């Protein structure tokens, strides 16, 4: 069972179009910062989406947040606790299977 310890959830509010995931995932890939888990859902009328990323809370996190905030398709970035997040429930489901 994967651990949520020392991990946090980055919550991004983004524009919803086919290139957005590429921008977000590319940012993490080219800075060699692994994304452990990912969850995306469109919001409201589908103009925007919310992306949740489960990532390690290491010393590069602050830089990753700043870099994500620079993406033009990203409106807001929040750092949230992994405990109590949707990922916690997913971890339980996956490990039961």
């Amino acid at each position: 069972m994967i651990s949520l310890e020392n991990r946090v959830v980055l919550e991004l509010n983004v524009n919803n179009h086919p290139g957005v995931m590429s921008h977000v995932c590319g940012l993490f890939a080219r800075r060699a910062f692994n994304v452990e888990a990912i969850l995306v859902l469109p919001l409201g009328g589908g103009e925007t989406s919310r992306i949740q990323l489960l990532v390690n809370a290491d010393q590069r996190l602050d830089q990753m947040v700043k870099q994500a905030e620079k993406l033009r398709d990203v409106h807001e970035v929040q750092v949230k606790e992994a405990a109590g997040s949707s990922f916690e429930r997913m971890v339980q489901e996956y490990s039961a299977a």
Partner: protein
Amino acid sequence: MPSMTGAELLIRLLERQEITTVAGIPGGTNLPIYDALGRSSRIRHVLARHEQGAAFMAQGMARSTGKPAVCMATSGPGATNLLTAIADAKLDSVPIVCITGQVPLGLVGTDAFQEMDIYGMSIPVTKHNYLVRSARELLHVIPEAFRIAASGRPGPVLVDIPKDIQCQSVTFDMLPAPGTPETSPDPDIDQLNRAAEMISRSRKPILYLGGGVTQSGASETATRLAEKNTLPSVMTLMGLGAMPHSHPLSLGMLGMHAAKHTNLALQECDLLIAAGVRFDDRATGRLEEFCPDADIIHIDIDPSELGKLKTDCVGIVCDVKTALEHLLANVQDKQRGEWVDRIATLKRDFPALLPKTASPLSPYGLVRHAAEYVGPDAIVTTDVGQHQMRAAQAYPVTRARQFLTSGGLGTMGFGLPAAIGAALAHPDRSVICFTGDGSLLMNIQELATAAEHNLNIKIVLADNRALGLVQQQQELFYENRKFASSYGNALDFTTIAKGFGIASADLANSEDPASDLRDILGSNGPALIRIPVNAAENVYPMVPPGAANTTMIEGAAND
């Protein structure tokens, strides 16, 4: 209600952005755009010979004016050929807008002829990019592309437009306002006041000026701040011109190829005021040993630069000019006699090493002589390599946007097309391009463009038949095993230039090289001057990659 095609709308929007020159190459998927461009009376098109050349021409325009410039390419290879120059613009924060044709939307994703996912490929090298899905989208995408390119920390934007979108007709009420830069965020006045106090308290401060000073138009403010508080100042490669080369407070460029006194002064400083810099490794050397005793004030408009490498700074997210103006108003008039004396001692004991400058045939002499003959109004571009570092060390840069060089990416092939761009944007000035044979060969086809437009560009070629900076590293760090770094055949560059229709001279055959150099630099139109230099002459001082800036390998003494 006006109705036009996507291509016509694009050109109309570019005209409204006051774009007067576009560099590019047409192809299958951008022909509708070219058809509309051909009917514009306000925009001149410059046909490059390679798309990378077109993008560097846009860079030359943008770097020399500070305003976004435009290049165009067709889909597939046309678009991929742009990428190196776009990456170069990203690393040096240059505002360019690249417009690519794409296969019709219905064919996207089918591996159609000349289809390439340039949207995906350009994500890491652009500030932002677009794949346009309807002609109507252009109404907001184009102004936004210009706004993004020029706002905050500038950068390249790519707009990919499928061919059918270019032909689609669009009806609209009115054209949108042109995209203009966003106003910068209000600075944190408390932080700026704290910075002013730190400057007042410091005994051995140094002002560290980077490309952001040029970007924000703050070079005069920076110089006045330095003068008021007596702040010795260092510049990054991108910051050259922030303070005139000859200014008594200027310590020139810092870092890997700095004068030894510059790096030693940094070692001793107790306060580093970093403005519009990003602590690049070529400037700082081993970061842990950079300015070990200094408090650091870091001013930058890009929040992600603060704390990226140096984490213990007083970080101020602010337009550099606004910040320096505030500091100028709030620091004391100060003389700092002791620190000035110490700097003078360092300068005397460890002077800049620019050997053999008296001879126009020496690597440093050719820079100094050429600078003297073209005068202070000239714009300078360089390629990448030993000649670039020598120009950075020795050229008497007098102002911002005068010295255009590929700093972050270090792209060989930059110099000639960038010079063309600068000449297109400044027909009243002469442009001098320092290059080496390795670099020149990487975009030599643009000699044809320079000749076609009879641009006032002087190419000063230091020809050592080698990749000089590679050989230098092989000699110093690979036990002198020189491999794959010299050219087995000699090229006749003066004949090549003539073949392109460009005047040329080889100073190797000159009885009076200084006089011949002066004559050809004073002539009108493009010219190439070849000066043979010895590949065994290294650029010194040099900090080994990864070493501390105080670990400098020194070269020959001045004579």
